[in-house]
């Protein structure tokens, strides 16, 4: 408002101006409003699903939601769980651990969910897992985290359908060690997930005599990576690992390409995302390689059936994180059906040691820590021949015989003994 026109109104002090601006800016930083479904009364079995719908991982979270919903719909079409319809109740965690914790508590105490899945980002998963352990509710974790299956966090209620950073990096690191130069540089997202990727890659690289020529950590949600590049270029690495996720991966690959980094080094994304690749375009990702748990062009019947069902419903193929949600929810609900009642111990007995193939090839529930064993695929970005066909599977690293997993002892469990920690009587 032009200052002269204030006339009758009282003047605005600098202090009150900054106060209002500050509050508004804070609210802006927290993101817009989100409308989620509110729960209805009694009958249906409610499956809680906190996800970071707003924030740098929002795109991937939406795919998780669609994957979980598809699994719920398929189970409902076959008669539901123990004769009850299942209802997915989604909440936004905003990618904040405290928000995830609050939302999980709300889902358990107010909405009355009896099963839980969801989350993207280890800190969120651990927070939700904590609430589930307290309430004695089985939780199917569907994004990458190391700690969740370790002593301290793991419990009889905790299930980890996704790969973890250890499995991912043993597969990708080993493959890169075999195929590319020895000078490795790491651009690491500065929180648990990024650190674990970098640590895992260093460990995997040891066997191949790699040289660690540097690491730069960047804050989660960085929009401009250009100022990180001179130091990386000066270190003259053969391989640059982008140990990040979501929009961070998209922006770092896009900007690294524009800075000509690919002329000097191979870019590797340990978790190569179809969503980021689609958002950045063909040119930005040209020649970029990395690992994944699932790609929709996998030529096996389960993958094709999942892709078709997902595509019919959402008008696009699923990404790897949709796969985690789909596979995990099928296991959780199917497990309860086989157990015959909704309780942690029968569910554990129905899942532990089970071999299954929901959407990506053979998987196995390891009894000692409830981690799912599975293969890792190595992808290369390519120009699409048809829409969404953005990657080529160039190699498969088998996860059979616990090859990629930490041993039961390493995660603080007992080999051969099923996980029974934290069981409520």
């Amino acid at each position: 408002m032009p200052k002269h026109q204030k006339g009758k109104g009282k003047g605005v002090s600098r202090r009150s101006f900054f106060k209002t601006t500050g509050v508004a800016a804070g609210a802006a930083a927290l993101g817009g409003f989100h409308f989620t479904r509110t729960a209805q009364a009694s009958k249906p079995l409610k499956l809680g699903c906190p996800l970071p719908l707003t924030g740098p991982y929002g795109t991937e979270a939406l795919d998780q939601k669609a994957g979980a919903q598809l699994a719920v719909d398929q189970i409902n079409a076959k008669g539901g769980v123990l004769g009850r319809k299942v209802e997915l109740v989604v909440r936004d965690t905003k990618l904040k651990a405290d928000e995830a914790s609050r939302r999980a508590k709300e889902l358990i105490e107010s909405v009355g969910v009896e099963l839980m899945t969801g989350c993207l980002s280890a800190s969120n998963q651990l927070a939700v897992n904590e609430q589930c352990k307290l309430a004695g509710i089985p939780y199917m974790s569907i994004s990458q985290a190391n700690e969740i299956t370790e002593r301290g966090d793991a419990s009889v209620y905790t299930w980890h359908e996704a790969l973890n950073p250890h499995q991912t990096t043993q597969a990708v690191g080993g493959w890169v060690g075999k195929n590319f130069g020895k000078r490795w540089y790491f651009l690491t997202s500065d929180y648990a997930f990024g650190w674990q990727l970098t640590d895992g890659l260093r460990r995997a690289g040891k066997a191949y005599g790699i040289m660690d020529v540097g690491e730069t950590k960047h804050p989660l949600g960085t929009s401009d990576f250009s100022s990180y590049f001179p130091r990386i270029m000066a270190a003259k690495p053969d391989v640059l690992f982008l140990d990040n996720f979501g929009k961070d991966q998209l922006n770092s690959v896009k900007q690294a390409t524009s800075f000509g980094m690919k002329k000097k080094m191979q870019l590797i994304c340990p978790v190569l995302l179809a969503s980021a690749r689609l958002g950045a375009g063909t040119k930005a990702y040209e020649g970029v390689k990395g690992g994944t748990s699932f790609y929709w062009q996998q030529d096996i019947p389960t993958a094709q059936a999942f892709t078709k069902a997902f595509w019919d419903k959402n008008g696009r193929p699923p990404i790897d994180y949709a796969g985690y949600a789909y596979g995990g929810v099928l296991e959780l609900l199917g497990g309860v059906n086989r157990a015959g009642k909704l309780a942690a111990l029968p569910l554990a007995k129905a899942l532990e040691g089970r071999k299954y193939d929901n959407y990506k090839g053979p998987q196995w529930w390891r009894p000692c820590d409830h981690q799912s064993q599975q293969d890792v695929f190595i992808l290369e970005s390519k120009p699409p021949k048809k829409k969404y066909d953005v990657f080529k599977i160039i190699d498969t690293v088998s996860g059979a015989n616990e090859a990629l997993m930490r041993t039961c002892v390493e995660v603080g469990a007992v080999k051969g003994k099923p996980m029974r920690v934290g069981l409520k009587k």
Partner: protein
Amino acid sequence: MDLSVIVMQLFTGLSLGMLYVLLALGLSIIFGLLTVVNFAHGAMYMWGAFIGVFTVTWTGSFWLALIMAPLGVGMYGLIVERWLIRPLYGRDINYPLLLTFGLQLIMIEVTRIFFGTSDHPFNAPDILSMPLEVMGIFYFPAYRVFLIIFTGVICAVLWYFLERTNLGLVIRAGTRDPLMVRALGIDMNRIWWLVFGIGSALAGLAGILAAPIRSVYPEMGVAMLVECFVVTVIGGMGSLPGAIVAGILLGLVSSLTTLIYPQMADIVIFLVMAVVLLVRPSGLFGKAGLLE
């Protein structure tokens, strides 16, 4: 530390700074001349990027998009000023602030509804996507060089417009003493209308120029708005040279911090802001008393 790395770092800092300048210019102009704190600036920036994406998808021309984005957002700004902001003149400064804040939420939600929440690919035109070789070991994107030069030109044009044209003279006079300008038979409402349009167009321009560098998605303006306010506060609310100097300063500071202690890169701009506000409460180039 290698000297060439530092030189290269200064380069990236400059290009980062120019982006800050571009983002803050529109905000600063609108505040300086209308005393309206435009919280919808970030959402207008986002719409600029989206208009760019769709112009390129339909026509394939980046250069046409470079015209369409500021034009489209500028016209939107004219509508917003005429029908939403103007009725609030004469009230407390917080009214337009809250209005534009709400407008921002609506704009983001509308974009989400129509275009989804995922990212839209956008690349620099072929002629600008070649990395230029610097000192043998480094490359620098041609697009960022273009960005630095283009932003410089925009600043020069704005300066010329405000300082050397008759319309600019009226605008400047209007900020000092609108009553007198009115007495001379000039319709100040039309001047403010125009200024709001120009400020909005600059937001749209920043959006399309940032699109080849950053990801394009509905919330892209939210984080940017915070950086943008930091730049305007350091430079002095409403000061054009302030926005330019503060933008470049922040780019350099943040870039050099990345070199020394990367984890601090995000926080350092707020530290600079705190220090500047302690030493010069109205910012580097701010006029004291603009808000009193």
